[in-house]
C-alpha cells in the first residue's frame, strides 16, 4: 500500500509543459530522491504534491484519498505533509520557538505547553537547543534551514517534502543538514527530496528518479540509477554532476 501515488500527472504554465506523464509511487518509510538539472520540474512536482500548484491532468492519491479532487480539504491535506523550501522561508518576525509552535497550536489544536515541549525536542534533534528565543535573521543559513526542517516536523507529518534544502547553503553547512536528514531517514520518516546531493541520494534514498524536461525519464533503486543507468540522458547528467 503506497502512501502517495501519482498517476499520469501533467502540469503546464500557459503553453509550456513543465511536468508530463509523471507516475510515482511512495511507500511508507521510503526516501525518494528527485534528481535532474535545474528547471527539470523537481520543485514543481513537490509543489503539486502539496497542492501549492494546480495540475492540468492526472491524479495524486495521498493516504488513500484523491487529493486532486476539487472538493478536497486542502488544508487538511497540507496538515499531514511537511514542506521545507530552498530559501527556508522562516517567519522573520517570530522567534524560533514561535515558528515551531504556530502551526501545531493554530492548525492542529495542540496545547501551547505541549507544542513548546515538542518544539524543544525537535530543536534538540536538529542540534539547535538553546536557540528557542533567537530570531531567524540572526542565525546562519544552515541553522535557519534546520529550524525550517524542525518546523515542518513539528506537525508530525506523514510525508516530508524537501525542496533543494541544501542548495542555498555554504558548502561547509551542507554536511550538518544532510546529517539531520540521514537521521530522519534512519528513523523511518517518509520523504521526497528534490536534491543535487548525489552522494546523499546514493547512500540514503530507497528510490531515485531522474527528471528530464518535465518527465521522469528513469527511476529505480540508487544502485541501478547510479551504477547502471539505462538512459543516455541519465548517464550524461550523472557524468556532468559527478565530475
Amino acid at each position, binding site marked *: 500500500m503506497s502512501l502517495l501515488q501519482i498517476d499520469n500527472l501533467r502540469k503546464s504554465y500557459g503553453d509550456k509543459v513543465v511536468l508530463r506523464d509523471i507516475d510515482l509511487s511512495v511507500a511508507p518509510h521510503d526516501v525518494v530522491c528527485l534528481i535532474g538539472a535545474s528547471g527539470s520540474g523537481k520543485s514543481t512536482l513537490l509543489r503539486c504534491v*502539496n497542492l*501549492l500548484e494546480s495540475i492540468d491532468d492526472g491524479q495524486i492519491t495521498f493516504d488513500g484519498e484523491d487529493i486532486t479532487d476539487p472538493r478536497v480539504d486542502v*488544508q*487538511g491535506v*497540507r*496538515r499531514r*505533509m*511537511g*514542506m521545507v*523550501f530552498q*530559501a527556508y*522561508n*522562516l*517567519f*522573520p*518576525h517570530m522567534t524560533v520557538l514561535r515558528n515551531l509552535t*504556530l*502551526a501545531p497550536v*493554530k*492548525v*492542529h489544536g495542540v496545547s501551547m505547553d505541549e507544542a513548546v515541549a515538542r518544539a524543544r525536542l525537535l530543536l534538540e534533534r536538529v542540534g539547535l537547543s538553546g536557540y528557542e528565543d533567537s*530570531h*531567524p*535573521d*540572526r542565525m546562519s543559513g544552515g541553522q535557519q534551514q534546520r529550524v*525550517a526542517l524542525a*518546523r*515542518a516536523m513539528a*506537525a508530525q507529518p506523514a510525508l516530508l517534502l524537501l525542496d533543494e534544502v541544501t542548495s542555498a547553503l555554504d558548502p561547509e553547512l551542507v554536511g550538518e543538514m544532510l546529517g539531520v536528514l540521514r537521521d530522519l531517514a534512519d528513523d523511518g520518516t517518509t520523504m521526497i527530496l528534490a536534491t543535487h546531493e548525489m552522494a546523499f541520494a546514493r547512500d540514503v534514498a530507497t528510490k531515485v528518479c531522474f527528471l528530464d524536461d518535465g518527465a521522469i525519464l528513469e527511476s529505480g533503486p540508487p544502485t541501478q540509477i547510479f551504477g547502471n543507468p539505462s538512459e543516455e540522458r541519465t548517464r550524461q547528467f550523472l557524468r556532468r554532476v559527478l565530475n
Partner: protein
Amino acid sequence: MLATTATVVFFGALTWVITSSPGWPTVRDSFFKWDEAVGAWPTIIKGFGLNVTMFLIAEPLILVVGALVAVLRGTRSPALFPLRAVAVGYTDLFRGIPTILLVFLLALGMPALNLTGVPTSLFFWATVALVLSYGAYVAEVFRAGIESVHPSQIASARALGLSEGQTMRHVVLPQAVRRVVPPLLNDFVSLQKDTALAGAVGVFEALFASRDYGNYHFNFTPYVVTAALFIALTIPLARFTDWLGKRARARMFSGGGR
C-alpha cells in the same frame, strides 16, 4: 565649526534681507506683534485643544479603516467580491475628493438632512471627513505593505496548513505593519495639520480662532502663533519618524534583511 559659521552667516544674511525690505515695518506690526500674540493666546490654545482632540480621535479610526479596506482588497474568495468592490470604490472615491471639499460636504450636508439620530455637530462631521479621506490613503499604504511581503512567506504558511485568514493574521499583516510604520507616521504628521481644515466650516479650532481674533483686531499675529503651535506639535512626530527609519535601515545593513 564650519557648519556653525555657515549657519550664522546664512541666517544673518536672511534676517538682514527681510528686515531691510521696504515693507518690513508694516509686516512686523501686522504679523509679529507681541501684545496681539499674548491677547490671542487663550482663544488659540483653546482652539488648538480641539485640533489635538480631533487628531487623537481620528488617528486610531483611520488605522482601523485603512487596515480593514487593505485586507478586504487583498481577499480572493469569489464570495467576498461585493466587499472587495466596496473597498475599491471607497479608495477611489475618497482619495479623489480634496479633503477640504469632503469636510464641506459632510459638515454642511449631513446636519442639513435633519434626520433623527444623525449628529449635527460640525466637529463630528469634520472628524468623519478626515477619517474617510485619510482612511483611503492609509489603506493604500497598508496594501503596499501587504504586497511587499514575499509570496514565499505565504507559500510556507499555507504549506503548514494555515488558512488564508490565519496566514494574513499571523504571517502577512505583522510583517506588513512593521514595514509601513514610517510612511504611516508621515501621514499622521500630515493629519495633524489637516485638522485645521475643520476651521473652514466653523469649528472653533486654532486656525478659525486666530482668524476670528485677527478679524476683530485687524492683525495677523495669531496666524503666526498658530503656525508655531502646529510646528511644535509635528516636530516630535517627525523626529520620531526619522529615528524609526534610521533604525530600520540599520537593521537591514546588519544582515537582517530578510
